[in-house]
């Protein structure tokens, strides 16, 4: 039995005014293992701490119990005192006499009961203390490399920030170019600067950065490991163009005989089967869309291969895999648009060609877009005179869409309204809205400016859009007047809300980070840890965490980068010693513990068991990765044999606590 010292704290009159501290100390002296017991006014004060240090020395104490306030307040304080006393800091246990006793049972009528409770609480602490084991935080080395998943503006910004700090970055983007959604936009609100003009220099910077390795047309397929030591497998999809030979001359993509609808322009334009998504793509080298390539659909063509001056075309190219080790992961997978065509029959289910989405409008109004910047009705190519915008398509619709607000639609709609009024003289713009949310710097001013320019905002949700000859009839209501409104429009632009990017669920599963109810990745704390996840070493940047505009995305990306730098610029990490541990002798390898671990810290390993008198035998047991384990203990209960136990909260300790309390 270890030698235990008990220190009962008065906390001034907070405890001492209600409980008889000397009596508690006296009674504690009789508990098994207690060799020293005393009380003091303020144990957490300097002299109080010194009291402990001295007593440890004088009475050769091996375990220390302080009966004072909540361990949530001072556990760490006293652990440091033990460290100073030369004891393992985990040889410490607290009894919470203040929050759980004196403060809640102050009445003289229950004084005797409170006193008995206090003694029980100290007995519990002593019982646990007697069973404490020394714990040592582990040290794990850190791989000074960061994986960024997603090459939109969030991924670009975070990659540049991390790389600028001198750390190596692997940026993986599944499309043939980085740039994401932002590079598709024409102008950015509220400053109206050209989106491509401000994002393409950053894209080039990524490509040229000595610390960034860029994988486009690639996907992360597997992630294992833990903070500081992840292993990831990247699939480099076959481009059928050898980028090491290609010089991006453009001969091939201008001469490809195939035309397919261009997904970069959301079907508003066309591209070849060998293509670059847009002129400023990074890398500025093509890929072949084998599904549409004439050589693969009809078995003959090969025009690009014949034309290529460097012989870069390689129809036989295969997907390749790259295994990498990284210390941290930043997820920046971005957003997609709410699939309104599947839901909103009242807006035509996508049947009416002149009902377009905001992103299509961006491509249309973009000078380098499919119409060369001319705003035109997709049905006729004519300039629309009356344009109706419908906000909150998919957003703020519990019934058929998403409950949340997508945050940026109000502003991009205002920007679109401005662009129509600016580019089409005599045009009329109507915006149906529920609320207009202009939360950013200069946003409200921009909204006001657009109204000044003549955009008519109508508070109400559009109920129906239908085709009437060449016009679209938009039926809504002005809820401020309480009257129905009908508008004969030439074009209707839907402000479709943001949803997690396609494949977000797969990313979540692969890395082991939870998604919120809407499928966005769950941050560790909505206020105080917005760029961290519950998985150590995995951070979030941008809209994969929730809808946000470009400034917020970039801020969060830099925030995530700062977190990664803080992590990776250390030599090694100290791990929390309060983690689970498997007693392999007891483990039957049923792995009931594995699925209950939210951190995927438990993995099966095969061990060779050598029992006396038996041949060596291989069997599977569970093993806890201490780098991943956060110490919740859910696994310990899943284990029927009691083979898995939580350090600091062991079965033995908890049973002793129950016994001590019930005495």
């Amino acid at each position: 039995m270890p030698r235990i010292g008990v220190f009962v704290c008065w906390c001034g009159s907070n405890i001492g005014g209600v409980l008889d501290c000397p009596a508690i100390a006296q009674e504690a002296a009789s508990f098994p293992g207690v060799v020293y017991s005393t009380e003091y006014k303020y144990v957490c004060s300097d002299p109080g701490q010194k009291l402990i240090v001295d007593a440890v020395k004088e009475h050769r104490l091996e375990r220390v119990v302080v009966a004072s306030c909540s361990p949530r307040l001072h556990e760490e304080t006293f652990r440091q005192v033990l460290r100073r006393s030369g004891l393992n800091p985990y040889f410490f246990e607290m009894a919470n006499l203040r929050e759980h006793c004196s403060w809640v049972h102050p009445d003289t009528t229950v004084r005797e009961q409170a006193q008995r409770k206090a003694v029980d609480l100290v007995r519990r602490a002593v019982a646990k203390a007697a069973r404490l084991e020394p714990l040592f935080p582990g040290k794990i080395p850190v791989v000074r490399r960061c994986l960024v998943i997603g090459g939109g503006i969030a991924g670009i910004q975070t990659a540049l920030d991390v790389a600028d700090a001198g750390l190596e970055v692997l940026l993986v983007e599944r499309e043939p170019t980085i740039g994401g959604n932002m590079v598709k936009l024409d102008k950015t609100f509220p400053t109206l600067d050209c989106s491509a003009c401000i994002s393409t220099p950053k894209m080039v910077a990524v490509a040229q950065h000595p610390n960034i390795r860029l994988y486009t047309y690639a996907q992360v397929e597997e992630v294992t490991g833990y903070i500081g030591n992840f292993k990831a497998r990247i699939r480099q999809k076959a481009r059928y163009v050898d980028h090491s030979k290609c010089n991006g001359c453009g001969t091939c993509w201008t001469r490809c005989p195939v035309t397919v609808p261009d997904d970069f322009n959301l079907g508003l334009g066309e591209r070849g089967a060998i293509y670059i998504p847009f002129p400023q793509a990074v890398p500025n080298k093509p890929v072949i869309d084998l599904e549409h390539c004439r050589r693969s659909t009809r078995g003959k063509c090969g025009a690009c291969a014949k034309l290529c001056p460097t012989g870069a075309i390689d129809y036989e190219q295969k997907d390749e895999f790259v295994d990498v080790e990284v210390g941290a992961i930043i997820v920046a997978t971005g957003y997609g648009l709410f699939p309104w065509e599947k839901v909103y029959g009242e807006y035509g289910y996508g049947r009416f060609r002149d009902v377009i989405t905001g992103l299509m409008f961006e491509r249309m109004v973009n000078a380098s877009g499919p119409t060369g910047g001319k705003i035109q009705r997709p049905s006729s190519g004519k300039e629309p005179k009356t344009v109706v915008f419908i906000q909150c398509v998919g957003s703020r619709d519990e019934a058929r869409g998403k409950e949340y607000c997508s945050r940026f639609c109000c502003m991009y709609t205002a920007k679109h309204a401005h662009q129509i009024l600016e580019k089409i003289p005599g045009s009329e713009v109507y915006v149906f809205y529920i609320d207009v949310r202009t939360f950013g710097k200069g946003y409200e001013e921009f909204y006001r400016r657009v109204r000044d320019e003549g955009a008519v905002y109508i508070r109400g949700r559009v109920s129906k859009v239908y085709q009437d000859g060449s016009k679209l009839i938009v039926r809504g209501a002005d809820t401020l007047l309480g009257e129905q409104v009908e508008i004969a429009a030439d074009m209707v632009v839907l402000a479709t809300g943001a949803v997690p990017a396609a494949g977000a669920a797969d990313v979540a599963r692969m890395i082991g980070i939870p998604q919120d109810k809407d499928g966005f990745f769950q941050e560790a704390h909505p206020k105080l840890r917005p760029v961290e996840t519950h998985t150590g070493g995995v951070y979030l940047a941008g809209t994969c965490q929730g809808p946000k505009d470009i400034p917020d995305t970039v801020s969060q990306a830099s925030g995530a980068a700062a977190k990664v730098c803080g992590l990776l610029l250390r030599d090694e990490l100290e791990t929390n010693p309060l983690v689970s541990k498997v007693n392999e002798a007891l483990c039957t390898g049923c792995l009931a513990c594995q699925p209950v671990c939210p951190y995927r810290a438990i993995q099966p390993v095969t061990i060779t068991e050598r029992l006396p008198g038996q041949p060596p035998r291989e069997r599977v047991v569970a093993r806890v990765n201490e780098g991943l384990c956060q110490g919740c203990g859910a696994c310990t209960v899943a284990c029927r044999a009691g083979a898995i136990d939580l350090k600091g909260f062991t079965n033995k300790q908890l049973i002793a606590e129950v016994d001590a309390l019930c005495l």
Partner: protein
Amino acid sequence: MKEITEMLQQVAARLFNEGLEMFIGYESGSVPAKARPYFAAVQGETAALVFNPFCEHNLAKYLVRFPNAKTAVVVKGCDAGAVERLVKERNLDRTRITVIGVPCGGMLARERVLAELPQDGKITAITDRRDAFVFQTSKGEHVLEKKAFLLAKCLICTQNNPTGVDLMLGKEAPPVGETGKDPYARVKEISALDPPARAAFWDRLMDRCLRCYACREVCPACSCTECCFEQAVPGWQQGAIWLSKAVTLPDNLHYHVIRAFHVAGRCTGCGECERVCPVRIPLMLLNRKLAGDIDELYGPTPPDVPSVLCTYATGDRDEFT
């Protein structure tokens, strides 16, 4: 019955030729109307194998004893889940095991059968006639209606043809269980009692437990290398002592409640615990209670999950708000 027995012997012989090291089946018992587990280790021992309506034992758990041998085992419909369970939890190496399924027409309650048959008659043959077993004895033919003579668990049986076997012998057996019989009828009766009456009911049963652990030993879901209630770890590295080994009512109740909880969602419903209990504690009442609750609250558990307690749904019923 005879043809199955013959098939068993043939299959066993063939398997031994193919390198089998152990065949676990049944042989006739030393007393009438009884079978017992039989372990054939060599070719020559296969002739003793039988199958008849007294082969009520679940042989699956014996597999665990031969971790390194190529083993074959005979399973009935209600035993097949046990093999599956043991394999799923990595107690068995499925590649070493040949599972031989036999169609089951139900198992008979021995006492009732003996009371029905003439005292000195020797059973010469048993035939399954769907609703009844026909016994040929030296004293003549006796038709035993299944409804009257089957084991209680067979009357609520829903799967008398094994699944997931490597080799199925004979024709598929027609259903045995009576339709419309509520498997939870008794559980509901007990639940309907008031707490003191329920306590009294269970106290009377638990009081007679000997803590022989037979229920645990035979249970295919009780597959821990070392049971948490009996861990023999040297003192200095001793873990938790969950339960005193004293045979007292509180300890007995603790043991049975926690054992039932440990096998919750994993119990294959074979009823072996109850069968082997020397003091006839109706242990399946605990297992069935849990099975019923799980069914009611959570429905079927996905096959890739170890057990109902290793998964959740955010929308699970919340009785704690």
